[in-house]
């Protein structure tokens, strides 16, 4: 690749990113309100666990104090803000079904990269608006972060895990969408995936609460990196000595999913027959 080609690619990528960003910021009022509302379920969770902890001897559940539990919910929401990809798989499947992906085949733009850039822009738009509600919530709940601010190494791992949660979440969703090349209607599959994702990512509760044999099984799946893992890193639930090893495993999952998405896309295009007008 020559320097000129590279420059062209970067500027095309930058343009895609900017268009998607501006498209997203059009509805910022609606956006900010929606983000605030999303914190309401946390309030009920705080009270539920408050009541549960009152009747628990020793004040700890699977190593989590009440403060840890609330902090966990806040942090896992942050993780979900990075990893959740609303509508991605269904959009991909719809574009395949209705023949819309033809446009990627006749333009010098790679579909997967185009979508990744689009999503990244959506997320950046989301964070610009959502930072304020998130900051308010974390400030109000600062008392629940009992173990204080973790050290630099944990911080680096935490930030890294959030970015990887975004990419892993993207490619997992994308792969489900690309299955649409084989089955035109994927809503049932998508539903099963969303259900597993919600339960096994640790969005509902810290995965450490599960009985140990379940916990072991789930730790072999990629879902935990979407919500549980970043929160667990921050709260010091991942021992420092295995921290980088865990990050390495996540990286392997990530590379695996990227390769899978590429293979699905290449194979899928061979089957694709351009339905629709």
């Amino acid at each position, binding site marked *: 690749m020559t320097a000129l080609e590279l420059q062209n690619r970067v500027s095309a990528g930058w343009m895609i990113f900017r268009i998607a960003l501006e498209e997203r910021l059009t509805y910022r009022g609606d956006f900010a309100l929606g983000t605030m509302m999303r914190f*309401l379920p946390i*309030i*009920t969770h705080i*009270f*539920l666990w408050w009541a*549960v902890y009152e*009747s628990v001897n020793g004040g700890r559940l699977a190593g989590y104090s009440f403060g840890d539990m609330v902090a966990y919910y806040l942090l896992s929401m942050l993780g979900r803000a990075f990893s959740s990809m609303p509508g991605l798989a269904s959009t991909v499947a719809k574009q395949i079904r209705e023949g819309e992906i033809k446009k990627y085949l006749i333009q010098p733009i790679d579909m997967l990269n185009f979508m990744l850039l689009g999503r990244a822009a959506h997320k950046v738009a989301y964070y610009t608006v959502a930072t304020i509600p998130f900051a308010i919530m974390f400030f109000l709940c600062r008392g629940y972060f009992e173990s204080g601010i973790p050290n630099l190494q944990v911080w680096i791992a935490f930030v890294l895990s959030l970015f990887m949660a975004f990419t892993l979440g993207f490619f997992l969703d994308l792969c489900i969408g690309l299955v649409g090349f084989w089955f035109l209607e994927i*809503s049932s599959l998508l539903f099963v995936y969303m*259900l597993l994702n919600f339960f096994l990512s640790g969005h509902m509760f810290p995965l450490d609460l*599960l009985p140990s044999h379940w916990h072991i099984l789930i730790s072999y799946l990629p879902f935990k990196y979407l919500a549980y893992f970043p929160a667990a890193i921050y709260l010091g639930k991942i021992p420092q000595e295995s921290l980088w090893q865990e990050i390495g495993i996540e990286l392997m999952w990530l590379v695996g999913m990227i390769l899978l998405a590429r293979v699905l896309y290449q194979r899928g295009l061979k089957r694709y027959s351009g339905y629709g007008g």
Partner: protein
Amino acid sequence: MHPNYFRVFLTFARNSLVRDMMFRANFLIEAITGLAWACMNLGFYWIVFEYTDSIGRETGWGKYEFFVFLGTTWIVNSIVQTFFMPNLDEFSELIRTGGLDFVLLKPIDSQFLISLRKINWSGLSFLGLGGVTVWLSIQQLCQRAVSPWQPDVGTFIFYPLFILCGVTVLYSLMICLAATSVWLGRNQTLYDFWFYITNFSRYPMEIYTRGWGLPLYFLFTYVIPVLIVVNVPARIMAQPIYGGASHRGWLPVFMLCATVITFFASRWVFNRSLSAYRSASS
């Protein structure tokens, strides 16, 4: 001449069923989807009760009492979702598009027509699940060694009665919310609002009676009475022995009043919204 409301309702019910049966696989998938989410919820509480005997100290919400509570939540929500949710969601849309004109022209009570036109039969799968959960939990409560659950005629009369009250309260709140779209223009987030408001009602009210939960407790019990919707019937079924004796014994009386008040208030809001309605896009 007044139309026969019951026969009109039956026609709506039959039409909706015919429509649902046209897409049978979709109907089944919708029913299963709901059940799967519910089972996941059940799994979550199952795990919580691995660590504790009750939700809160001396609240009486032990494992099976709480499962009665959960079952009651599903029953109440399924009735609302089956009969009212699809219609009230459309109400906002009717206002926005001006389709409400055609409703107002018909020689029948507009609130009735708007509230019950469509019935989402697949929502009833939740009702079945809720019923089974309550039934199985009660069986467990009957068999326990300490103060087993004892059947009482009152329980079987009051439980369904207060479930209906709960449904009425939720319906009234929902129609008020939907009617606001006359003034606000658009109200796409009715489902969202609905989710967040009922979110408070899904837990025993005792959990809010601490710290900064007290203002919430009073707000959602006495001003926007969503907390009593599930709590009162569930308590009647799960904890009949304490029901009358505890300090919350007067809540059923309050609930009866709240049901009547919210229903008439919602009708007032609804009529106000109709008089503020200016037809659109015609």
